[in-house]
């Protein structure tokens, strides 16, 4: 299942994967991932994928298991909780022209990069 706030990811994958589309921020995506991981979904992709910092790109897509697992292990929980901590650290350094406040042209590029990182994971 893909959890994303990137409409390009939703549009490309909603017919081939389960997609939970979040009308919200990068952090809202992380929180949705955390909530799913805590009920037993396994984290498949790293929530901080890419070198774009959480105070730059407003888009995030994360892949988790479709099914709830009886023994998901602690790794997924540790990774998502740490990712939220890192996000909040960077959010304290948010620039006025970044994240949700970026220009539409820059946002388009951020959407493309987020999609392409996911594509290279899924299509590899």
């Amino acid at each position, binding site marked *: 299942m893909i959890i994303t706030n990137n409409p390009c990811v939703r549009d490309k994958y909603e017919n081939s994967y389960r997609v939970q589309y979040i009308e919200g921020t990068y952090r809202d995506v992380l929180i949705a991932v955390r909530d799913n991981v805590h009920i037993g979904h396994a*984290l*498949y*992709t*790293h*929530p*901080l*994928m*890419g*070198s*774009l*910092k959480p105070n*730059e790109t407003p888009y995030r897509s994360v*892949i988790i298991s479709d099914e709830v697992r009886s023994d998901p292990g602690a*790794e*997924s929980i540790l*990774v998502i909780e*740490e*990712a939220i901590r*890192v996000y909040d*650290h*960077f959010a*304290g*350094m948010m*620039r*006025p*022209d*970044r994240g949700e406040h970026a*220009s539409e*042209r*820059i946002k*388009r*590029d*951020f959407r*493309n*990069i987020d999609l*392409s*990182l*996911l*594509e*290279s*994971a899924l299509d*590899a």
Partner: protein
Amino acid sequence: MKLELGYIPIRDIQFSSTSKVDGELLYVNKQELIDLLLQDEAIATVEVDIARPGESVRITPVKDVIEPRVKVSGTGGLFPGWCAKVDTVGSGRTNVLKGAAVVTAGKIVGFQEGIIDMTGEGARYTPFSKLSNLVVIIEPKKDLAQHAYEKALRLAGLKAAEYLGKLAIDIEAKEVHTYETLPLIEGVKAYPDLPRVGYVLMLQSQGLLHDTYVYGVDAKQILPTLIGPTELMDGAIISGNCVSACDKNTTYHHLNNPVIEDLFSEHGKTLNFVGVIITNENVFLADKMRSSDRTAQLCEYLSLDGVIISQEGFGNPDTDLIMNCKKIEAKGIKTVIITDEYAGQDGASQSLADADAAANAVVTGGNANEVIHLPAMDRIIGSIDAVDHIAGGWSGSLNPDGTITAELQVITGATNELGFNHLSAR
């Protein structure tokens, strides 16, 4: 495997009607180079410029930096899988135009990054300010997809470096440096009393603008493997990476990896340099587990006593770094990790996105959030409007008088995680 690097010092680059190396001068026929690069149908226009140490010049947005080299003898050619066939490189003789570089620039995405200042405060932070740089700026054909533009720019840089390198094929080198790696068993016998040390080189491999290639293969598709250290000196690994300017490894870094250089210089004295393991930094957690498992397994198989691990990039590669460290330490092998930090502008926050008690020996390339002030330059090569949009710039970071206030992460190579830099806290 034995490689001789012949250094031909280059003091300056100048445009001329004939491309040639004459003494310490590199002459370039600009139009001939432009025509060569325009053979790529993805490219609309090519501009070529020169930036010299000490000049009031700012290059931005920088994509890659490449050192011109040429194979004089031995199998294969520079940049196998791209400019040459995939024959194994790393033996024989390679000539190097030391002091010269090709710098590629082009705005692939709106938030593109990377500054090289040739003078002033910024110049102190990038090793490339000390080089005579031939800057290649590529504009793509209209509507070319971003990944195709990235590839065109990447190949243009390699081709330009190959073009310059070939000018040095018959030139006698001023200095010759010899590097040799013995077959495993012979290597063990050569220095039986010295600690056996290996190097784990982590390669950025996450997708568009985050890729590295090994003999032409996308590194996200490799399993960790052994590679001869001299193979890197012939361009077996190239960068397709242009996000996070301060801590990405350019092709120049791969050709001149300082960890490999230092391990060779201590080889037979304080340690026995066994070899290099390359591994990747993928997006899937399962890939991270698999790659770190196999990396640790290779370290054990080589009976290493110690390992140096270098990272590339920040964020999720921190997870790969810590997994590698933990799993290698769990085999009873000591590790030292090389990373950089995003510790906030005051340097007070936790530096990495992951941590473990096993990571008890750490070398840092510096705090990428450190705020720096760059003076105005007389001339810009590339596009300055990128500055407002690069990682570590912020709105108003480009001041009306041409000065820039930004975080260190805007500068190409500033916190490089191979330790390839001039500044230190010593």
